[in-house]
């Protein structure tokens, strides 16, 4: 049982300290950034990423370094990654807004259209996955514990009490279960990406010879629909769809 608790505490938090070498790269990146060597900072932070570290602070610093070195598309991509991991990261949201003002592409919604991300997607995405997971599991385990306790209880009064205690617990379990499964669905099935190349041709088909619909520019956030060979079918916020090279879009 002690082992189980230890696992419960440690695994979701990824509490194991990172490798000293990776920590050193991170510090080097920070120092390079402060010295104004933004490309050096990018290089150092990239090494941390390649070491398998996934952390909003890491993404945030890398995004800052990209922005300072003039690579706005990559900056937007990593701010979005930081926000995807921690939706309440105000710093990343604030800097992202500043960078977005400098972007070339403004998606114009056609009159009366509402093909952007649905409201419920926005809402569910704003919920922290870790918090949602543990809240759901907490109510889930509690609900079954009460069910088991009720079966073991001999006195009718205790059984009745446990029944009524469990009614709201089971309701909350269902509500959080629904929210949790929706969040997992969005996490696993609804993918977004950011155009990272400075200018990208949006084509009608997954071939270089396909007619060009329009040109999009770095930093544009798009919905990723599916992959065909080395092309991605993407959808803009106004519903326009087309194909771009996979390497030109960073998956959030």
């Amino acid at each position, binding site marked *: 049982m002690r082992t189980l608790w230890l*696992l*419960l505490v440690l*695994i*979701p*938090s*990824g*509490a*194991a*300290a*990172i490798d000293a070498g*990776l*920590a050193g790269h*991170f510090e080097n990146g*920070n120092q390079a*950034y*402060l010295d104004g060597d933004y490309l050096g900072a990018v290089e150092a932070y990239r090494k*941390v990423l390649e070491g398998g*570290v*996934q*952390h*909003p*602070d*890491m993404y*945030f*610093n890398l995004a*800052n*370094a990209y*922005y300072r070195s003039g690579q706005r598309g990559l900056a937007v991509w990593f701010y979005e990654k930081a926000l995807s*991991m*921690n939706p309440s990261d105000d*710093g*990343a949201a*604030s*800097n992202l807004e*500043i960078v977005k*003002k*400098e972007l*070339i592409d*403004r998606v114009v919604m056609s009159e009366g259209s509402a093909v952007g991300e649905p409201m419920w997607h926005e809402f569910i995405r704003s919920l922290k*996955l*870790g918090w949602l*997971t*543990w809240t759901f*599991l907490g109510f*889930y*385990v509690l*609900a*079954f*514990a009460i*069910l*088991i306790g009720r*079966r*073991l209880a001999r006195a009718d009064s205790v059984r009745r009490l446990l029944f009524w205690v469990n009614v709201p617990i089971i309701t909350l379990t269902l509500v959080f279960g629904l929210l*949790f499964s929706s969040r*997992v669905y969005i*996490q696993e099935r609804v993918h977004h990406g950011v155009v990272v190349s400075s200018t990208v041709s949006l084509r009608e088909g997954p071939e270089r010879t396909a007619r060009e619909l329009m040109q999009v520019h770095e930093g544009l956030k798009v919905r990723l629909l599916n992959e065909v060979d080395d092309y991605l079918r993407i959808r803009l916020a106004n519903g326009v769809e087309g194909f771009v090279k996979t390497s030109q879009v960073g998956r959030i």
Partner: protein
Amino acid sequence: MSRYLSGLLAVVLLSPAAGAEEASFTASVDRAAVGLGEQMRLTVSISVSDLDQVKQLKLPDTGGLQVLDRREEEALSFSFSSGGGQSYKKIRNVTLLLRPRKLGKVKIGRASMVYKGKRYTTDPITIRVVQSRPRPKRSRRRAPSGFPSPFSSNDPFGSSFDDFFERRRVEVGQDAIFVKAFVSPDVVVEGQQVSVTVAVYSRVGARIIAIRWPKLDEFFTVARDTAGFKTKQKVVAGEVYMHKVVDQKAVFPLRAGEIDIGSVEVEVGFSSSPFFPEETRTLRTRKTRIKVMALPREDRPESFQKGNVGSYRLTATLDANAVSLNQPVTYTLQVQGTGNIQRVRPPDLPDLPRFKVFDPGVDVQVAKKGREVKGSKTFEYILVPLASGDLRLPAVEFSYYDPEEGEYRTQRTEAETIKVAASGAVGVMNGTAAGREVNILAGAFKPIRYRSSLTGYGPPFYRHSLFLTVLVIPPGLFLLMLVVALVRARLGVDTRRSRMRKAWVRGRQRLKQAWQLAQGGQAEDFYAELKAALLDGVESRIGLAAQGVTMDELRTRMEQVGMSAAVSDAVRTETENCDFGRFAPSTSRGDQMQASYGRVRKLMHQLERERLSKEAR
């Protein structure tokens, strides 16, 4: 009928004076003299604003006339009064088909009804019944529905209700309903607004089915909302018409010269009487020609761009006057006024070498109501300062041609200054205002996170195998409890089979106990336990208690369940042997006890084998 009613209703709803309260209640006959055996019609007509309020309707006494049939019709009637007011009424006609049975005068009595608490009666009617005369036969009309008229079978004149109404049908002439387009003004300059208004004039109840505009390729068109136009009464050539604006467009000519505006087609549905089906007709306006003059060349400002025709005002706003290097500012220019706002070109920004200027974002707002097109067009420029210091944004000019004044006009914004700090002082700048030092705090770019453990985030927990474990354990435990409870409940049932199973388990335990007693040299207890184990074994085989039963009875039962005689004999022998051992324990040696134990054990195995083979069968 429903089409007709909806058509009338469309017009009636526009009527501000709908709902007059006066009631009309009349009775009439279609002839004053009728031949004996011929048919005549008596019609009682109610014309009120609310038929639901009609109570206690009593039809007149027919004075001995035979009632052959009765028909009721309801409809709406729409009318204008000479004072310009409009009214509608609901009509219910009750028509009786009558046939006299004797010669002479017949008096048809009064009909009565109560409407809104007031009693109404009709006047009595007197008709003469005369000898019928032979008449030439007429070809019978078929009812439009294809079913024979209920009145046609005994109608000597070949008339029917449909004939009756058909005779009263009024042809709606071309002048009873027509459509007209008003084009104003018809002499304009390029880009100036021309309003085209389509109005329907009608003397009958009518509804608009469709409006089809001609091609307006040489214009930029903006649809206008006509919902606010009321139905009015107008006199045309001495006739009173209902007048309704049904559509309006603002058109802006794109070239100079004479341009035709083709006919607008309006498809209408109407009927001359409440009792006839709706008729549709396509009405057309007359083609109109407008004269478009070119914009004057003299006094044309340099900043004028084609399309900027109307009356406008230019405003400029800057979202921040102090920023750091590379931090963008939003410079918003807004053109507001009357004219073709959607075609207004953005004012030319002066050359700004110390800024990176992005293409503007454009937002257009146009009011839908009103004859004149009004609105605003906003151009949002993103400027990124490329140098620090006080950067100047010169004034912006916007020129337009005002057709009302007949001259070009130019609007100018104020010049602006943006204080740009070096990037080291991100977000915080010092400035001076009215000689006093102030701190200007602008939106800041958040710095890097210098210290971070870079832990606490990893792959989501739901991807970890432990998540599945946590998910499965609670319901697994619960299910296990349910299964255990179920098994225990089943085991607790006292059936023959369960008794046999329990006896077998008990026998095995006793056999084990006997072995321990043998090891301890307790012969008396050993034999007692060994006998009990054997009898339990027998019980597990026959399903009945073997204790306290005589050996003969036991043998009989064993044979009944199909046990072999050899086994029965062996059981008997060993039972007696155990009894002997119990009552003469001193004679029992250890090797004898072991031998007895071995035989009983073998016998129990034999019993078990027989039980299993029987179950298998």
